[in-house]
């Protein structure tokens, strides 16, 4: 297996996870990490070059692939810079909150002839990948309904909410991508109801914390997503795809698979606490897929168009909530941007 040299921009929470995963990944050599705000005293150790200057990664001729894990406002800029430097890019979602900015970045990537993968890690979760396989293999027939329940264990601070672009583009964006990925179909229309039921501060920041979103898909199927910023019992991540021959459902995953029976009741474990725990394996598998697409010169399995489509659906949901009417996607998407997940 050809060894690919990689660099990382951004050593925050997700950057560290990716770095640690790459250090243990065969066929990848993590050479350098840059972050202007991290002192790198404790981590990652002497084997990896560290810098406060992103240019040190971008200008390193040995580095073939760059992971953009910086704060969202710099994603597009770093993705473009890395692409211009001829490096393949893995970018955390979202590339940008403005679709025009995303389109511009995708243009730069295309002209540079490099690969771009977007961090839709859930596509690589073994459980959800199994759900997708049931659809692809025809086990449940034609898709009629996709149902997603996605609830966080605790709401983010109101300041985060303000910068996040709102629940639909920050949180539900993953669910929009899952609907596209699992159904293999495009979203044509969105209707969203939202409410502030968890934390009034989120409402004051102009966002919602509870939502139900209805989607119409191009293959005729319907989808519905339930979101909440706070499920006191843990990270609630369930998906069901229902079709002409039956349905397949993914349950929550738990730290241990036990059932405790006492006179007080029959008790199972709470779900894994949050996304770092629940999707741990998916973070490894998505990077394996990224490096394998470089090695074998294939399309990355979650590309820039997927990032753009999920963002457009999120913006349509936002508009639907604001105007209280269903919003057609065709009016938002640019011509030629339709490509099934």
């Amino acid at each position, binding site marked *: 297996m050809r060894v690919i040299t990689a660099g990382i921009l951004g050593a925050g929470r997700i950057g560290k996870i990716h770095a640690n995963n790459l250090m243990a990944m065969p066929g990848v050599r993590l050479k350098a990490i840059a972050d202007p705000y991290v002192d790198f005293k404790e981590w990652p150790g002497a084997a990896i070059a560290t810098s406060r200057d992103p240019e040190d990664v971008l200008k390193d001729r040995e580095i073939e692939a760059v992971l953009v894990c910086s704060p969202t406002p710099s994603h597009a800029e770093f993705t473009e810079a890395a692409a211009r430097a001829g490096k393949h890019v893995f970018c955390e979602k979202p590339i940008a909150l403005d679709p025009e900015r995303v389109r511009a970045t995708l243009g730069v990537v295309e002209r540079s002839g490099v690969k771009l993968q977007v961090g839709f890690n859930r596509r690589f979760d073994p459980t959800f990948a199994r759900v997708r396989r049931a659809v692809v293999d025809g086990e449940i027939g*034609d898709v*009629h*309904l996709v*149902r997603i*329940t996605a*609830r966080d264990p605790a709401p983010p601070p109101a300041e985060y909410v303000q910068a996040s672009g709102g629940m639909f583009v920050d949180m539900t964006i993953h669910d929009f991508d899952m609907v596209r990925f699992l159904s293999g179909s495009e979203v044509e229309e969105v*209707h969203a*109801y*939202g*409410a502030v*039921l*968890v934390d009034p501060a989120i409402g004051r920041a102009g966002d919602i914390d*509870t*939502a*139900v*979103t*209805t989607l*119409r898909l191009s293959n*005729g*199927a*319907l*989808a*519905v997503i*339930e979101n*909440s910023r*706070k*499920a*006191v*019992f843990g990270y*609630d991540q369930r998906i069901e795809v*229902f079709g*002409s*021959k*039956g*349905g397949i459902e993914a349950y929550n995953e738990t730290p241990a698979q036990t059932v405790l029976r006492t006179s007080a009741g029959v008790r199972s474990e709470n779900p894994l606490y949050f996304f770092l725990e629940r999707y741990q394996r998916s973070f490894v598998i998505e990077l394996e897929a990224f490096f394998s697409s470089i090695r074998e010169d294939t399309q990355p399995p979650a590309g820039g168009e997927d990032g753009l489509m999920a963002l457009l659906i999120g913006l349509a949901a936002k508009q639907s909530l604001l105007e*209280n*009417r*269903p919003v057609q996607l065709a009016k938002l998407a640019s011509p030629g941007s339709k490509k099934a997940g």
Partner: protein
Amino acid sequence: MKPTTVGVIGIGRIGRMHTENLVHAVPDAYVKAVVSRTQVDPAWADALGIPVRSTNVDKILKDPEIEAVVITAPSGLHVELIRRAAAAGKHIFCEKPVAFEPAPIEQAQAAATAAGVKLQVGFNRRFDPSLLKMWQGVQAGEVGDIHQLRVTNRDPKAPPIEFVKRSGGLFFDFAIHDFDTIRFLSGSEIVELFAVGAVLVDPEIGKAGDVDTAVITVRLANGALGVIDCSRQTNYGYDQRFEVFGSKGSLVVENTTPTTVVASSKGGVVADTPHENFVGRYREAFIAELSAFVAAVREGLAVRAGADDALAAVKVAAAAKASHETHLPVRLSANVQATSGGQRR
């Protein structure tokens, strides 16, 4: 105290089931008469010990011994039968739908009120042990404030097209139970909804002007949001799942199965599919709703599923149909009464 004497009007599939339940499982009821448009099978009536069988409804309505009637005749006759039974001073249990429009339901309700008789409607789910426990949990504050409710309602096999044509459509015939379930569990009213329907199971259903698949999202007066997903055909049994999610946690009702056997082999781990249809899934509920009706008659209690519930559910169904047709969210008028959910006058 001697049993309450009952007559059953309409001996189709549901009529037979209710009659058998009354005879076998409701000790406080005595079924004296059954009336049907076509001849009732005498062997069946003999076996149940029902002396009066007739094709004339007056055999029930004019019998002074009969205190209560169970109306399981075709839907189109419900309102007229309620009015006549009320005029005859009989307490009434009527299968849903009472009617497809608010006005006749209001007339039926007025007739029952004027006559001072009970009128219970066949919203059987309110009497299901699992949903009842869920409701009790909500009342006890186990989920805290309700934030979201979810109902999954899917039939095992699409009904015959002839049934679809006279059913009133998916929103009135099928999702009506879901509208009532949301009202029942939340104790709140639906103030707005958005419904999308699709024809994915059988194109004939589409040609008959109906849909076979639907997603309905609702806004409740208490601020919570709800989701209903419906399909006319699962191929794996009757899929009935419910979830109430709130500030302190959630309550979930899963499917029930005929047996609890799990077969593990190289090919996989296989459990029973859910019950084949509503008869198996809601067996206890069908008995409990009649027991509760008879108890309401005997003890002068309030019915737990009344004409006002039927009225509210029909208004929601009409809004859902309008939303599907106009492709827009629909607000429900404020004249839908707020209720306490389970117990009522």
